[in-house]
């Protein structure tokens, strides 16, 4: 827990790519066991924000505190930190030269130093939970997109993270495959996992989120409960964005 009682706390976070400011003065608090959904158009900074929390990107200003530790300071062991913070990407990014089981056990074995037998039995247990144990020895390209993404989630869970960052994890999936992935995320939320989710699935956000943040051009324009943001947005920009999303959905 950080000083202000939040599990994740971003203060005045700024991120630039060259001259382009992609995140501007971001303040965001996430309580433990809570789910925060980030919504906004592509390029609004959602992905960058998640990558900053995982230190895959370095911030240019402000600070980020996770589980009481200021992760943006000096003397931070990034490898150790990343074992506590799982991230799942839109494009799955499974390792194509490894089987499902090898994908899931790589980090526990090499980063955490867990024995192969232990790592494999844990991985099998996780795969069993998502109904993919029989795919343990398949290579990722033999799996459907939905299965691959579920394996990617399990791979991120295998190091026992306390925080999960999900970066538009259903955006690359066929519509009929989205459900199985969201179901897994729903279960994670129920189990009390703290999560920050960048998503275009508004109904899913409404269902699982404790808080929804609308990002536009690197700024959090509006945040509140799903009800407040998705049903009664105050800001004109939020309204426009939601209208566009609804229109897209109808098409």
């Amino acid at each position, binding site marked *: 827990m950080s000083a202000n009682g939040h599990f994740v706390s971003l203060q005045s976070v700024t991120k630039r790519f060259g001259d382009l400011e992609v995140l501007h003065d971001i303040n965001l608090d996430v309580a433990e066991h809570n789910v925060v959904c980030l919504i906004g158009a592509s390029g609004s900074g959602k992905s960058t924000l998640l990558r900053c929390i995982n230190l895959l990107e370095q911030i240019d200003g402000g600070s980020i505190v996770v589980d009481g530790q200021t992760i943006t300071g000096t003397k931070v062991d990034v*490898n150790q930190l990343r074992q506590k913070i799982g991230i799942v*990407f839109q494009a799955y990014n499974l390792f194509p*030269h490894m089987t499902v089981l090898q994908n899931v056990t790589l980090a526990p074995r090499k980063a955490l130093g867990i024995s192969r037998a232990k790592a494999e039995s844990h991985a099998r247990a996780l795969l069993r939970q998502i109904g993919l144990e029989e795919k343990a020895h398949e290579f990722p390209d033999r799996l459907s997109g939905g299965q691959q993404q579920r394996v990617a989630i399990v*791979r991120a869970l295998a*190091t026992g993270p306390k925080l999960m960052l999900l970066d538009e994890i259903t955006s690359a999936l066929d519509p009929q495959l989205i459900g199985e992935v969201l179901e897994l995320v729903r279960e994670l939320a129920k189990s009390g996992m703290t999560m920050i989710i960048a998503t275009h699935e508004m109904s899913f956000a409404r269902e699982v989120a404790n808080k929804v943040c609308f990002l536009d051009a690197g700024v959090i324009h509006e945040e509140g409960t799903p009800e407040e943001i998705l049903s009664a947005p105050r800001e004109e920009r939020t309204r426009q964005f939601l209208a566009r999303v609804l229109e897209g959905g109808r098409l």
Partner: protein
Amino acid sequence: MGQFLHTFFSPLDFLRATPQIWNGFQVNLEVMVVAEAFVLVLALLLAIVRGLPGRAAAPLRGAAILYTDIFRGTPLVLVLYIVLGFATLNYVGLSAETLFTNAVIALTLVYTAYVTEVYRAGIESVHPSQRMAARSLGLSYWQSLRYVVLPQAIRRVVPPLLNDFIGLQKDTALISIIGVTESVTQANIYSSNYFNYAGHTVAAVFFIFLTIPLARFTDHIIRQRERRERAQAF
């Protein structure tokens, strides 16, 4: 025509020259295998150095680039003579008599430069998101390289690597110029003794028979990979 056939394809000379050429060819094989082993390891190290991130590694990257520039640009014949010249200075146990070592050094210097570029292309062909995914799981830079990037990179560059090795194989014929007694030397000896070039033909046949299986194997690997990629793309 009869004169031509006799000079290059006389059966009697084939039989007489073959044992001698085979003796020489074994030297080609030994040099090739030893040089290849060094090249595979050194080129991988250089390719890794060239990919090191950060400003601190800039001098190392620069040195690696300079190395490939120099040894890719210098003809092997010249490198052979330069290594021979260096050997005559009697540094680090080398001399004009350490023929085998001198030959291996020259071939390794030149082919490491080529193969470094092959490895580098392979490493760069692995999408950055793979490395990012590995790092995001808490693996270190080196672990990501070792377990995620290199296995994929090396798999992809097997065909061009084999191509370079066919080149290396053939270039072992050049080491005769610094005094190594190998197949070409033996063919030259034979031709000056018997005024017949059948020995050179025999040497050529040895090289061809060594190259063909490697070339077919390369084709096979390329085809196999194309099939796999097509299967993925559907």
